């Protein structure tokens, strides 16, 4: 661990910065508003990196899980092995996974993404399957009976009706990934983990980096929620 920490020296506390009045606050490792104001731009690059790590992991994770779910939807026997496999991936401690991957993929973005994507698979896969299973059987029967092809039944009836469940899975995956991406720093992939682990004792630093994580998670969550509400107007129609 110390090895990795040593390599992340790009982000060391700069206590000399700021007006002299703030020096006392910084020396106490406190929450110093003017230090934060002056040093905020130092967090922009890690934040951008964090967004990239999260969004790429979600897009790839969603694509893989969705494809697996569609495959398993028609071949039910696949569900159990897929859940088991993704479940195993889900249980590997993320730090352990980073270090296991280091000899194979080296330090950097790729290693971080492999780990982050692995953690989204179980969540999204299970929600897509649950969503597809929850589609009313009568709607599917009627669709087939009216002459929709299997593909049309899937894309015009089953997937739209599974959207709320799929979106729910995506939201959980998004918030989880934002949190896990702080560990990407250990794989040398940057992100908000960089400033956090650079100086865990300095409250101003941890507050800003941690706060940005929370903000990012909330924004992603709201974006998925908004997309879901736009795509599923029927769920808001008042029942008779």
């Amino acid at each position, binding site marked *: 661990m110390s090895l990795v920490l040593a390599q992340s020296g790009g982000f060391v506390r700069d206590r000399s910065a700021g007006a002299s009045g703030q020096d006392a606050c910084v020396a106490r490792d406190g929450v110093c508003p003017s230090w934060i104001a002056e040093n905020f731009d130092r967090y922009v690059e890690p934040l951008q990196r964090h967004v990239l790590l999260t969004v790429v992991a979600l897009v790839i994770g969603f694509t893989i899980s969705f494809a697996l779910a569609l495959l398993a939807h028609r071949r039910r026997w696949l569900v159990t092995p897929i859940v088991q496999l993704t479940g195993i991936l889900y249980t590997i401690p993320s730090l352990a996974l980073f270090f296991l991957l280091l000899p194979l993929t080296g330090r950097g973005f790729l290693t971080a993404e492999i780990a982050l994507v692995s953690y989204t698979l179980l969540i999204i896969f299970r929600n897509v399957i649950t969503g597809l299973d929850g589609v009313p059987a009568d709607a599917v029967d*009627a669709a087939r009976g009216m002459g929709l092809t299997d593909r*049309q039944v899937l894309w015009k009836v089953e997937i739209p009706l599974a959207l709320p469940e799929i979106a729910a899975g995506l939201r959980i995956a998004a918030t989880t990934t934002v949190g896990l991406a702080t560990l990407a720093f250990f794989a040398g992939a940057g992100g908000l983990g960089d400033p956090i682990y650079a100086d865990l004792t300095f409250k101003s630093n941890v507050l800003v980096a941690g706060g940005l994580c929370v903000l990012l998670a909330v924004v992603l969550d709201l974006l998925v929620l908004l997309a879901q509400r736009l795509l599923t107007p029927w769920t808001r*129609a008042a029942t008779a």
Partner: protein
Amino acid sequence: MTRTTKPDDGGPTATPAASLRFDAVQKRYPGNARPTIESLSIEVPAGEICVLVGPSGCGKTTAMRMVNRLIEPTAGQILIDGRPNTERAPADLRREIGYVIQQTGLFPHRTIAQNVATVPKLLGWSTDRIAARTTELLELVGLDPEFADRYPAQLSGGQRQRVGVARALAVDPPLMLMDEPFGAIDPITRERLQNEFLRLQAQVRRTIVFVTHDIDEAIKMGDRIAVMRPGGRLAQYATPAELLLSPADEFVEQFVGADRALKRLALGRVRDLELEEPTRVRYGDPVAGVREALRRAEVPYPLVIDADGRPLAWLDDDDLHGERIADGIGSEVAVVDRDDILRDAFSDVLQHRVQYAAVTDHRGVVIGILSADAVARELAPPGPAPVQPAEAHHGTGA
């Protein structure tokens, strides 16, 4: 096949109904010792409602689902207009067969208009044509066009079922399959929907395979009824009247029920009976004249009508005093439509103090009187041994 469905006002439709034939159709599922359907051969003439009825496990739904190839038979074939239904790809075949199921199968994520437009859209109709047809269909099934933009969850069960029927009729299919379409609806709404559907069918004249477990519904809806017994064996295929008058065997007799004489009431319409002439009076008429007219009347009570000939009240002896008939007196009149089925009309008659009902035409004008006696006479089975009306009365009172 291209359709040339023109918007019409429910008049004769452009596409002719199809005939349907089950030819020694058999369905076996691997692992089941007994076949689900042993060997089914029935013929449904174009434009008729064929009801498949029987206890659960008799294979009636399986039989229906083989028509549009949701289930493929193990042996035998199904012919539509003389051509095997296996000649065409299942999806193409199904687009020309209306499909209505008990739980409606409406798409919760589509508006009512989008639901109704499902098959027209699959067939590539233009937007204008689809919009016109949707409005027309909603009207046809008695739904306000304002429902078009609502979602199924915003409708009542009865309304949803109407949408289901409208959706199935969208491209005016020559053949329709209906699986317990009114099964999940409360009895009062069900009866109304059944009546509406029969009126609709009189206009559109589609060939319909109708599945139900309810023999009363079968008798009411069917032109022909196929009674099926467990194991998918056809017990009897006959018109409702034949079924009630001469059940083929003990199974059919039991299934049809001991009250089959009474059930025949579901077959007749009020207009089929000989109606009696009422003594029509108005408020303000001289009492003496009414008493005079009543002496020659078939019905012992004068019927008060309004200026348009609509029934208002029955008068009895106590009401006939003074110089003229006083405004607003008398007791409530049971009113039945000439097109009502006898069973419903009879039950209306029995619920009123005066056991006569005023029969009206579609404008609400009185055209005659239906008496409990006339219904009882109808119940007496034909044949050499005449049954006293009193006996029939007895039976109905039980």
